[in-house]
């Protein structure tokens, strides 16, 4: 490896060399396979860095922030700028209320139920493992709502590592719409804190769905993102289902 040239390869990649320097490097690259290989590796590193998929934080951070900002006296609408004061930031704790922990447990149960789930009579049942994205969102798709990816059943044999993903699954959309309608009708039977927790968790899941869809649009073949999206959609469905069951249990 010729370090006098490889040391210039980042500047070459970033177009930060003078025309004379650039010509010299290019002339060398034409005759040096080793330095060409280094350049190709550096291109891969840069490309990887530019396409890193977004990863949401694993913990819910909002509660600690909410606790802090309430301490500033701006926790309620209309307090106004003049009332603002600036306490020294203190170390944060990840705080969860009991209802939130309960909701988290609901979600965990839903997740542990696995990929084998059913939307309607004998319908969509996930079979194989990992997922591959089929492309960009379709027209009319609602980013925060009920039209992201779900696994769909296929009769034809699939690759062991691939499950097809549909972006506009009518059964899923209908199931979510039905559950949302039932929840709306029954919400009067739930106490306010339960409703708040359910709505808060739905917001989180919708946000996760939107983030996963955005990332998948940029990297449609990323199986991690596809799995994340399917998982988030399933969580939404299961959370809606459990919340609706709660309304009927209180009858």
């Amino acid at each position, binding site marked *: 490896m010729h370090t006098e040239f490889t040391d210039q*390869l980042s500047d070459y990649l970033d177009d930060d060399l003078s025309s004379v320097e650039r010509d010299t490097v290019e002339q060398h690259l034409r005759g040096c396979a080793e330095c060409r290989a280094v350049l190709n590796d550096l291109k891969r*590193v840069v490309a990887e860095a530019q396409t*890193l998929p977004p990863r949401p934080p694993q913990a819910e951070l909002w509660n600690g922030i909410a606790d802090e900002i309430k301490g500033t006296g*701006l926790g309620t609408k209309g307090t106004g700028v003049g009332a*603002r004061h600036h306490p020294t930031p203190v170390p944060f704790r*990840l705080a969860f209320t009991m209802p939130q922990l309960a909701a988290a447990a609901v979600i965990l149960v839903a997740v542990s139920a696995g990929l084998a789930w059913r939307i309607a009579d004998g319908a969509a049942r996930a079979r194989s493992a990992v997922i591959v994205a089929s492309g960009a969102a379709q027209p009319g798709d609602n980013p925060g709502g009920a039209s992201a990816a779900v696994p769909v059943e296929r009769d034809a044999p699939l690759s062991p590592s691939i499950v097809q993903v549909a972006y506009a699954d009518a059964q899923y959309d209908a199931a979510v719409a039905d559950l949302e309608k039932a929840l709306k009708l029954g919400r009067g039977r739930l106490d306010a804190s339960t409703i708040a927790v359910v709505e808060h968790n739905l917001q989180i899941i919708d*946000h996760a769905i939107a*983030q996963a869809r955005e990332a998948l649009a940029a990297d449609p073949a990323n199986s991690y993102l596809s799995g994340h999206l399917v998982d988030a959609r399933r969580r939404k469905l299961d959370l809606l289902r459990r919340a609706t069951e709660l309304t009927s249990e209180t009858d």
Partner: protein
Amino acid sequence: MALSGETSIQARTGDPDVALAAAGDSSAFERLYRAHVVRIHNLTRRMLGGQEADEVTQDIFVRTWQKLAQFRGESAFSTWLHRLAVNVVIERRRSFAIQRGRMSDDVAALDGLSVAPARADLTVDMEHAIDQLPPGAREIFVLHDVEGYKHREIAVLLDIATGTSKRQLHRARMLLRGYLSGD
């Protein structure tokens, strides 16, 4: 007729939540948090490592809340927030570096990166590889190659020479190349 502060910000940014949050609406601020937390957390995690990311992300949003009254809507809220986040991260990095005596432009400090065995899936390893970079190199690599900052911007942010930024970036890329290829 002059616009009120809230209306003025909304008019300039097109985002009612920014104006509402600036006026003290914590629900609007939570919506802003939900919209931006992933990007901010990714920035902090990649620049500081996973252990610090949660706390620093929270610190960034608390400071954002405290400084929202200073936001004039002259740039996009996301740009303003990102710049604030970068400044908080750099400030935090400096305090770590001073504590640990690692504040140096000396690129020889980059030589300690361990080499991982070669793996086929670069994407899987990339986050881990970035986390393995020495702090100074990681900071510049993330700002330049992940976040898209220019060397001259990084030089101002970090108070270093542009040439130092370029050298550190190249060293970071070469270390990542070696790490990811198993050399």
